[in-house]
């Protein structure tokens, strides 16, 4: 979403779903995973909206849908691409909107070669490095500029060569390596030339529109049927429903969740939806947009203020060793000429001031050098590899349960078994805390407790009722929760733990003159504490996040941030949450006393906007596209933008405004540049920079798939996906390869309403456990007949990574699909269970491989092949032996599934 629109967050808010004429839920099981949010879907349905649910299984969401489309797991790009093709072929796109607000008219450089030209890959592929060089994807005209975020290159040969040849080019022709750019665009577009060539007739053969049209032309209904297993008639019905409910008078909203992200091409799933929503003219408008449904109370917050390796607060990229030797170089690479990323220096300097206070001065680059640098991807899965390799020795696990909840759970545990020390903070003794005494590896004999050197600390955590703080929900809204009681005994908040850990470390290091300790000793770490347990004040932390000026007055908006060090701000996109010294996140004006937008409940970033890009709700002249879809409009008399929400636009900039030559940053935005974070002010159908795996989405098969890629017969998988072939993480043979028949079925993992993720907050509760007491798998009657599975009996599910057992639920809700002329059976696996807790069961993640989306480093657990057989799994060493037998039978080697190019 960041790359398409400029910010990596849901573009709308849940309540606004009530205004949609049609809602497409795909890659999400909203009724089950977000039941209370689903009330807004029901509101829309009550008023006549059509609900379409695309899902491999018939779920509780499907039960309420008007159209349920069963789809083969891992083929959503083909499905959505088919709709894109339909929309263009039938001239069903919203022409005026597309011309005004998207980059459809923009001309792309001649060097770009599409998958159509290169047999399934884009230009710039470096097969040896498993990466693309995006230089050839750029717009025509102007120097080609590095995408912001592409600063995590490996020290690869190519680059060294280039440097040897006179390295001045390095920032302009970067090699691309594994990086987390998807997120670094969380709130900001990538940079492009300030002025671009456009053809508003959309006829130029190299304009984005024509490229998109050509790219998706092969995604025909026939192909969709073959690839996705969706009958043409049903597919066309969905196409008609969406197009009839989009355009000037109507809007369609889309909702997705991890059903889209957890794939080796996950970011491109969302890209396809973004393209579709831009073509249909649904962005920035009431009843439209794309709603990312997130599964944790503050998962949006934890990317905004990231506990992520590649980001600093507010989507500022972490500096990279190679590029960012000083602040100037960093800013040069990370900011854009046009749009709000032009203010990067003031955001960064203010952050450094918040962290190192008076120590951060103009003279020392505001302590920029105190920041550690990246040298590649350091995502959680690379960390596991580093643990296994003995590089990473200490590990904090806070409120998470990787021994159950992360892909390839065995690798997670083996990594932890190789640590010096491990700290686990949780409510109860989750699997990640006790694997050393009762984990599956102890049972199989692979590990012996006495042999495990890891020192383990378990700290009891405080609950949300025992601490003050804010969560950022799925619609970017911060809501404050107040402490009701103090935590009992040794239970403490993370705020307490980290504050006091930092305090103790600083005390221990006090007096050190070692340069490595300076960032710690000079860190601003003097939060007031309160109460008997000396809990740091969360509101003081929020005030720092919001920021203050030189006099210590709270800031109101990130537009007040300065480059000269006179302002401090811990997270620029959250600037304004503590304006006037009032905790805006704690605002609770009752919803019934406000419009449906409820602007006075909590606080949403950026600047309390609830629908972002809302400038696009009005036409070029600033009038609502339709009387029934009015949201923000230009008021001639008042000479400003007005409406139901905070305009996501300079409120005084008229629709006809044209920037003066040489303007930069926000000043360079024209009156119709609705996507204010983007380097060209437009929504991106085509992404010239910012993505690692291509400027357009292309269907590739999942890492483990029994089917050949019919869309690109000579390119089976995403060529730049991240793969790690190691012991315990072997991949399955591709279609047609010997041994692929050993894993004939597709597995997909998911959640149930009754549990929460890896179960740490649900499996220990009797009230939730009794509702779904055991691990089960869902199979069709046909598969049950084929494999002799008995309803209510036991089944054993096997991949090259592991084997689990589950109770069998034989149900029509999992329908076999006809794919490429054969019947495909899909097996549903909820992933909540583990061996501890009150409700126990095997963890589905024992089966998952680690293969990642190259942009987001998210694992592919929504689609993988596997086998199933009746009965319980073997115990003890026989469990490992069974997996080994499958590996042998399938002829799996370390090279299996590692191909970059090629079909099958």
């Amino acid at each position, binding site marked *: 979403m960041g790359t398409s629109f400029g910010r990596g967050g849901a573009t709308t808010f849940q309540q606004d779903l*009530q*205004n*949609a*004429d049609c809602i497409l839920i795909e890659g999400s099981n909203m009724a089950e995973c977000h039941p209370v949010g689903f*009330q*807004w879907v*029901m*509101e*829309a*349905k*009550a*008023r*006549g*909206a059509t609900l379409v649910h695309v899902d491999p299984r018939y779920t509780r969401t*499907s*039960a*309420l*849908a*008007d*159209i*349920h489309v069963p789809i083969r797991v891992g083929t959503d790009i083909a499905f959505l691409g088919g709709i894109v093709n339909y929309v263009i072929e039938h001239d069903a796109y919203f022409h005026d909107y597309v011309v005004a607000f998207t980059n459809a008219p923009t001309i792309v450089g001649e060097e770009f070669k599409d998958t159509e030209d290169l047999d399934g890959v884009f230009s710039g592929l470096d097969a040896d490095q498993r990466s693309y060089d995006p230089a050839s994807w750029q717009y025509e005209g102007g120097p080609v500029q590095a995408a912001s975020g592409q600063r995590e290159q490996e020290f690869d040969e190519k680059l060294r060569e280039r440097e040897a040849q006179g390295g001045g080019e390095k920032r302009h022709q970067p090699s691309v390596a594994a990086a987390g750019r998807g997120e670094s665009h969380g709130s900001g577009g990538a940079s492009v030339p300030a002025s671009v060539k456009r053809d508003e007739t959309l006829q130029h053969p190299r304009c984005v529109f024509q490229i998109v049209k050509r790219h998706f032309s092969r995604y025909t209904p026939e192909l969709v049927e073959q690839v996705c297993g969706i009958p043409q008639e049903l597919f066309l019905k969905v196409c008609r429903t969406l197009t009839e*409910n989009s355009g000037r008078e*109507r809007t369609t909203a889309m909702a997705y969740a991890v059903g889209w992200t957890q794939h080796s091409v996950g970011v491109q799933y969302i890209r396809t939806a973004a393209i579709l929503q831009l073509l249909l003219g649904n962005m920035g408008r*009431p*009843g439209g947009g794309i709603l990312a449904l997130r599964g944790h109370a503050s998962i949006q917050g934890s990317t905004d203020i990231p506990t992520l390796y590649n980001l600093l607060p507010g989507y500022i990229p972490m500096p990279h060793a190679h590029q960012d030797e000083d602040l100037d170089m960093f800013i040069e690479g990370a900011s854009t000429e046009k749009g709000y990323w032009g203010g990067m220096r003031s955001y960064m300097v203010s952050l450094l001031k918040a962290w190192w206070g008076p120590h951060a001065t103009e003279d020392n680059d505001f302590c920029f050098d105190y920041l550690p640098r990246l040298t590649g991807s350091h995502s959680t899965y690379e960390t596991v590899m580093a643990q296994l390799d003995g590089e990473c020795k200490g590990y904090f696990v806070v409120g998470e349960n990787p021994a159950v909840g992360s892909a390839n759970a065995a690798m997670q545990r083996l990594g932890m078994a190789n640590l010096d020390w491990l700290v686990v903070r949780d409510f109860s003794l989750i699997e990640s805390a006790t694997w050393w005494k009762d984990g599956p590896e102890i049972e199989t004999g692979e590990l012996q407790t006495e042999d495990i050197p890891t020192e383990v600390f378990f700290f009891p955590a405080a609950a949300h009722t025992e601490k003050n703080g804010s969560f950022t929900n799925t619609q970017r809204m911060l809501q404050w929760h107040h402490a009701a009681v103090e935590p009992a005994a040794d239970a403490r908040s993370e705020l307490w733990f980290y504050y006091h850990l930092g305090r103790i470390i600083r005390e221990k290091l006090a007096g050190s003159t070692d340069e490595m300790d300076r960032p710690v000793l000079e860190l601003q770490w003097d939060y007031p504490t309160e109460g008997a347990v000396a809990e740091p004040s969360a509101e003081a932390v929020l005030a720092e996040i919001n920021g203050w000026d030189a006099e210590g007055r709270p800031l109101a908006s990130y537009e007040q941030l300065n480059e000269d060090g006179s302002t401090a701000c811990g997270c620029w996109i959250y600037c304004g949450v503590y304006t006037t010294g009032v905790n805006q996140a704690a605002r609770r004006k009752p919803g019934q006393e406000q*419009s*449906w937008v409820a602007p006075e409940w909590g606080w949403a970033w950026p600047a309390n906007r609830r629908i972002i890009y809302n400038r696009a709700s009005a036409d070029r002249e600033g009038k*609502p596209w339709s*009387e*029934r*879809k*009015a*949201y923000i*409009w230009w008021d001639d008399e008042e000479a400003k933008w007005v*409406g*139901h929400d905070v305009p996501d636009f300079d409120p005084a900039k008229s629709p006809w405004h044209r920037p003066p030559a040489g303007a930069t940053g926000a000043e360079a935005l024209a009156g119709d540049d609705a996507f204010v974070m983007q380097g060209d002010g437009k929504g991106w159908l085509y992404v010239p920079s910012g993505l690692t795996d291509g400027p357009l989405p292309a269907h590739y098969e999942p890492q483990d798939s029994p089917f050949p890629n019919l869309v690109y017969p000579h390119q089976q998988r995403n060529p730049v996906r991240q793969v790690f072939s190691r012991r315990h993480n072997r991949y399955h043979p591709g279609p047609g390869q010997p041994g692929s028949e050993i894993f004939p079925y597709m597995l997909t993992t998911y959640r149930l309403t009754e549990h929460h993720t890896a179960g740490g907050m649900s499996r220990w509760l009797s009230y939730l456990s009794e509702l779904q007491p055991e691990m089960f798998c869902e199979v069709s*009657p046909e598969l*049950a*007949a084929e494999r002799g599975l*008995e*309803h*209510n009996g036991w089944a054993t599910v096997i991949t090259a990574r592991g084997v689990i057992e589950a109770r069998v*639920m*034989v*149900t*029509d809700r999992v329908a076999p699909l006809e794919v490429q002329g054969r019947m495909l059976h899909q097996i549903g696996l909820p992933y909540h269970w583990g061996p501890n807790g009150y409700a126990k069961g095997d963890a589905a993640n024992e089966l998952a491989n680690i293969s990642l989306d190259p942009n987001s480093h998210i694992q592919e657990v929504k689609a993988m092949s596997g086998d199933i057989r009746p009965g319980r799994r073997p115990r003890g060493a026989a469990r490992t032996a069974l997996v080994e037998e499958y590996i042998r039978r399938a002829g799996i080697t370390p090279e299996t599934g590692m191909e970059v190019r090629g079909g099958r």
Partner: protein
Amino acid sequence: MNETDVTKDGQRHVRPGREATTGVHTGPGVEHVPSAARPARGRGEQAMVPAAEFGSYYGKPIINQPVWESPDIPGYLFLGGLAGSSAVIAAGAQVTGRRGLARVAKVGAAASAALSTVALVHDLGRRGRFLNMLRTFKPTSPMSVGSWILASFGPAAAVAAGSDLTGVAPGIGAAATVGAAVLGPPLATYTAALISDTAVPAWHDAHRDMPFVFAASAVTSAAGLGMLGAPVEERGPVRLLGALGGAAELATERLMEARMGLAREAFDEGRAARYHKGAQALLVAGTLSSLTARRSRFLGAVAGASLLAGSALTRFAIFEAGLASAKDPRYTVVPQRARLEARRTRPSEGPRSNGDHPAAPPTGTE
């Protein structure tokens, strides 16, 4: 299309979500796949999440299982009948000067009343709160009415027996004997209302005949006790009563079965069937032998024991049939569905119009 407009002035035409239509799959034309169309799958053995079969939710019972336990409650039904009828016999024997029979009947009445109270209290979930039975007087609750009867009868029977055995206060003893005799018949028969006044098909659907079965059974048992314990020369009335009671019990029970509809099949299941067969055999034997046991002490005792056991087994059979009929939703659903269908064809007759509604036709299984 969404009927809500977002105008410059705000939202227009807002409608609450509870008015949402359901999924498209809720229109007409549900195909109830008969289980035969699926791979072999008998009751209790499900090959998949079963397609909802007509008439039940996964074969689960509609009503909850009675928590009353055997032998407490069937024992109570039996002992109450025995006590009540014995008290009447005691009075008859006293009046007609049959002192031996009177003593046996009095002691029997008092002992069974005491035992039945023990059984009743034992079955309580909170035994310490048995006195709460006298917290109210509720004619709508046969158990409340019964509690009051038992609470009056028990002391009367005890005083009668005590006086008889000790010879103390013969006047009070006589009065107590009369009192117990007055309370005896209701004690013997109210238990029919007790179990019929439930939603258990085999009990409720027999409510018209159950009091007579219980009455007969009570007489049978008391007569049986009399025959077992009284001197040979005083046995005349109880022999007659035994024969009458036994025959009546057989007859009324047969009549009850014939009129109770589908629930009768519950008498053919499991324990109920065994008890039922045993009861009938013992009652036939007891009836016949009491007719012939004019002099033989042994034959009289056999007759008496047979009648006692037969009467007890009748109660146990009825009790078990009730449990069986509660367990299978068929007994609840099929007659009710038939009743609905009947009403649909005769719409003028509401369900409340017939106090003694005709039993549903024995439609058998679907």
